[in-house]
Structures are given as C-alpha cells and as structure tokens.
C-alpha cells in the first residue's frame, strides 16, 4: 500500500506530502525518539504523539515512509515547514496511537 492510499483509507490530514507513491513497509509506534530510531525500520509508518522538530530528523534518518501524528497532537508551522524541506511525508489523525495502528494493521 502506498502513503497516498493510506491517507485516503484512513482519512488522514496531510501536513506535508512529498512522495505519496512511497510504499509502506510495516509500522512502528513510539514517542521516545532514540528508542524509535534504534528499533524502527526503513519504510515503516511511524505513529507518535511527539511533534517537536526532532521528529522530522528521526523520520528522515530512519527513512520512514510516513510519520503520522496521532490524537490531533498540536504541531508548529515551523515543524511542518521543515518536513516539507526535508521531503518527509507528515500526516495527522484524530485517532489515538492504538486505534490508528489497529486500523493500519487491517490494511497492510
């Protein structure tokens, strides 16, 4: 499944979409950035409630297919702008992490 298809299926809000054709390879959920960086794999969708600018760096370095901010967690315009500059797919949902990843697991 591609990131664009995921957006459509789960009605996600697009904050930054630089490559909607990116294929999703599994998922990872977590808020401790170093923990996520050590465990997540390239191509994962990352579900988190963290929204500081370091989230963009982690998403870029791990090479996530998309990062999904859950529970409509508030995010600064500067962070969204950085995501666009770094070519990061950044999405948002009102669903809590558990509900989002449960819905995602039914799709991928």
């Amino acid at each position, binding site marked *: 499944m591609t990131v664009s298809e995921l957006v459509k299926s789960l009605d996600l809000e697009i904050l930054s979409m630089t490559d909607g054709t990116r294929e999703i390879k599994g998922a990872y959920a977590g808020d401790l950035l*170093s923990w996520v960086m*050590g465990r997540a794999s390239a191509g994962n969708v990352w579900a988190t409630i963290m929204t500081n600018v*370091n989230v963009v760096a982690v998403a870029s*370095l791990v090479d996530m297919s998309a990062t999904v901010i859950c529970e409509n967690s508030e995010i600064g315009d500067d962070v969204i702008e950085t995501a666009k500059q770094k070519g990061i797919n950044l999405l948002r949902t009102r669903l809590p992490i558990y509900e989002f990843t449960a819905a995602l697991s039914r799709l991928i």
Partner: protein
Amino acid sequence: MSEPLVFTFDVDGENFTSAGEASVAMKKNLRMLGISPEAIRRVAIAMYEGEINMVIHAGGGKATVTVSSDAVKIILEDKGPGIANVELAMKEGFSTAPENIRNLGFGAGMGLPNMKKNADEMTVESTLGVGTTITMTVNI
C-alpha cells in the same frame, strides 16, 4: 574514490532544535556518493545520536567524517564534562539527561547503544573534566 573525502561539521551546543543538521547533511552527501541506503542509514543514525549527545551533555562539539572506498569513519569530539562510567553509559536505559530533554523524547538511554549497534567499530575515549572523543566506523 581514490582519495578519502573529509567532511567537518561544528555541532552547535546552544540550539537543540537544529541538532541533527550535520547528520542530515552527511546523509545527503553519502547519497550523492552512491553509498548503499542501508550503510547511509547506519551512518546517519549513529552520527545523529552522537550529535544529540554532544548538544545535551557537552555544549556542542565537532564532527569529522571521512569517506574512503570501504568505510565511513565518524569522529565526534567534545570538550564536555566527560563520561564517568563508560560501561554503564553503554547500557540501554541508562541516562543522565535532564527532565527538559526527556520531555522532547530523548533521554531514553539509547544513544550510545544505538551508536554501537549501527557502527561496525566504536571506541569511546573520555576524561572527566576534559571531554569525550567517539570514533565510529561503518563499513560500506
């Protein structure tokens, strides 16, 4: 690549939000050099953790990355307080990061372990009150 390429970066210790810029820039450089995505990922993660550590604990420092035909070598030097017990610091979950850093999602005690995991070789030289130098090699 006959001659090794050397990249140097100053890691700003004052600005936590820009931490990681050297790693992201290095990732781009390696991509242009045609290095494999998996090797790039390992270099970028190892270097990012090191950068974050320098910002959190040492007030910044210097990163030198040497790219040769078979390996990427990353040297991270700081003039911070040094690491009292390197063996303990290498344990997953051990952290001395302050509360404000934990609120940003760091301080899980995964920095040094992540660096070791992603590097093929890693040495830590640290002297209390003088600073820390970490050398990591990622084979490509």
